């Protein structure tokens, strides 16, 4: 234990000198380990085809985790993402089913809908002062109820061409994966090079201080929550194109799953620290791990254990704050 702490502290110190976040390196190294293991264990893992598949498969988790990252950066958390994915998917599939010509407008409506729910989450959090964890559990419950009120079964459908969003390729590159990467790049740029982006860090770091500095912290928080809703709705649209229907139970697993890449990628619950690059690496780590475990044809149950342990390993190898006291 002792050498372990010492090592990680020493690595941390040297990275700090390079202005690199050590937790980022940890995910990166784990990612490399998974890749090497993949190459060694299966001759089909390392193919371009498979890696492109993984990129395609990681799109949904990518979109949602990206949204989640923004909320986490302003010091919040969103446990309604699963419900929003579901609601936007059902909404989209239901409307388009009978009016396929409305495809493009409905995409816009769905993204607006997600943004609105995100905004509502933010608004309720700011207005009531209730912890976002609780607020979003509440909105999730309401949304799930509403969706199930509308339909208990997978419903609706989309025109075939829309499946290209989920399955289409430009050359070898999956469209969905590329869109996800573009979204990440856009958010990364926003966070790094715009005043709004820097404000997000400030608000997450210390809300009152941000206000005193002249930042409109409410508007910044609302932006983060709304943007989260936007990306989550995008994930909903992706799911519709991938499954062809609006499924009222679709989003459930992604709620907790979306937090993992965020924290593994070095963001701090509580806000103000981290980088969406880390989240992206986290998303890749989880997706590749899933893929690799599928290839190894081992029992799902063992897969769970392995996943849990790797997550723990990823976040505990580098104890993020060396306690001063």
């Amino acid at each position, binding site marked *: 234990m002792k050498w372990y702490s010492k090592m990680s502290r020493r690595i941390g110190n040297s990275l*700090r000198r390079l*202005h690199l976040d050590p937790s980022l390196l940890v995910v990166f190294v784990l990612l490399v380990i998974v890749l090497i293991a993949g190459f060694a264990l299966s001759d089909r893992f390392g193919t371009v085809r498979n890696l492109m598949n993984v990129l395609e498969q990681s799109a949904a988790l990518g979109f949602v985790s990206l949204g989640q990252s923004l909320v986490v950066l302003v010091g919040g958390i969103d446990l309604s993402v699963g419900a929003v994915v579901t609601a936007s998917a059902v909404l989209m599939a239901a409307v388009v089913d009978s009016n396929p010509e409305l495809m493009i407008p409905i995409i816009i409506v769905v993204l607006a809908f997600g943004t609105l729910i995100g905004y509502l989450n933010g608004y309720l959090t700011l207005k009531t002062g209730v912890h976002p964890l609780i607020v979003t559990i509440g909105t999730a419950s309401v949304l799930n109820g509403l969706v199930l009120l509308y339909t208990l079964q997978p419903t609706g459908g989309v025109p075939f061409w829309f499946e290209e969003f989920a399955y289409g390729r430009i050359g070898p590159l999956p469209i969905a994966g590329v869109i996800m990467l573009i979204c990440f790049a856009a958010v990364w*740029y926003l966070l*790094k*090079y*715009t*005043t709004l982006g*820097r*404000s997000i*860090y*400030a608000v997450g*770091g*210390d809300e009152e*201080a*941000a*206000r*005193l*500095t*002249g*930042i*409109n912290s409410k508007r910044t928080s609302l932006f983060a929550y709304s943007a989260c809703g936007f990306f989550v709705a995008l994930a909903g649209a992706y799911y519709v194109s991938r499954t062809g229907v609006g499924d009222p139970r679709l989003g459930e697993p992604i709620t907790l799953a979306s937090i993992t890449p965020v924290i593994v990628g070095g963001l701090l619950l509580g806000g*103000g*620290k981290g980088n969406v690059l880390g989240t992206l690496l986290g998303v890749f780590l989880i997706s590749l791990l899933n893929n690799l475990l599928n290839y190894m044809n081992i029992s799902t149950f063992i897969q769970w254990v392995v996943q849990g342990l790797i997550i723990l390993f990823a976040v505990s190898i580098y104890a993020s704050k060396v306690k*001063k*006291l």
Partner: protein
Amino acid sequence: MLELTGITKTFPGVNALDRVDFEAQSGEIHALLGENGAGKSTLIKVLAGAYIPDEGTIRYDGIERHWASPRAAKDAGIYVIYQELVLFPELSVAENIFLGRAPKTRFGAIDYGKMHSSASEVLNRLGHNLDPRTLVHRLSLADQQMVEIAKSLVDDTKLLVLDEPTALISGRETELLFECINNMRMSGVCIIYISHRLEEIFELADRVTVLKDGQKVDTRPVSELNRELLISLMVGRELDDIYPEKTLPPKEPAPVLSVRDLKAPPTVKNVSFDLHAGEIVGMAGLVGAGRSDMAHAIFGSLPRIDGAVTLSGETFNTPTPRMAINRGLGFLTEDRKGQGLLMLLDMASNVSAPVLREFTNAFGIDRQFEIQAAKDEIERFRIAIPSATSDVVHLSGGNQQKILFARWSRACHRVLILDEPTRGVDVGAKVEIYEIIKKLADEGVGILVISSELPEIIGLCTRVLVMREGLISGEVTGSQISETTIMRLATTSVAA
């Protein structure tokens, strides 16, 4: 320039400001004085748009203003350096300085290159060399304060407010700061300056406004004032002698605390000293000299790589706070709110925290006993608090500090390390705290006072250790104790 009339602001249960009038002009330094809790910071926040006043009007630049947010006031040229640092620890120095107003490239993106060079330039003007890329949480409090001050120099500021800017810095930094402030005054900026250090007021200010219990007492030119007058305006009574009389304790052969070759890098390089029962020893030094870290290392709350601490003849190499407390060593830290008080608990629980065991019987904590003990302490230290079960959040700084004195003097009878015991405490409370320190020493407690206020060290201590860059650079005793001897040891490097 600025005119506040009839400003009233109440918080639940507190009337923080009561019909206060205040006025300041371009090109003047207007000092705002008052005891802790007098309402100075509240007044500042009202004029800067951070609080909306219940009543009263703000005229600024000839126009009546109703600030919607701090942003609005800032856009109008009002810049405030708040008492509690308004910094973002996870952002870099440059980003903190330029937050919300960063230089942009042609494409509207933040221009980091330009931002870093401007930040360096601003810091240089304050005589401070910091890498603008460093994350702020890696800086010492003093450096953070300098960043805070640098922020004010960037904008086109017309009204600058500084709320206790020198509480965390000392010596050379203070001088440079004063130089900057004076320059700004020359260029017509209106400056409102708050400090508990009266010397600074006389050095800097043109006029002084004194607040007391949320009401304005008076506004006068500095030239009409002297120290005694000022103090009596602030506390409403005369204070003839601030410091208690120095007495030397009977010298015992064995020190009660002895520190040998203590090393806790990077701040504490090698420290050795002795402390005897009943002694009041000062520990002086520039900010960042490593005094606080040294205290933490002795107390066991900061890991050290080498060195031995001997407490009443018992030596240990890896102490923990628990061991220190059990052997009678108490430590009152410099960060009252962050490292001292338990804001969510009542006063009695605050006092009993380090020695809960004493208050525990077979049925758990003996609440009656605990409250009784707290009552005794309230009496002993004359703490102004409604009852032993009141919250401590809303107390003034002085009373909060007294509660910590009660806690540590009750728990530890051999040695007390006091880190900045009067930081942010008003004059009235200061005097009482000096008396407490003296009384404890007379009871036989060895006391180490770490302070950045030289007058305090000089007035209080019979022996002064000076620390510089993690080393003890010297020791002065008795009549040799003076500002010049101490400052020389604190600034020049020790001969090898």
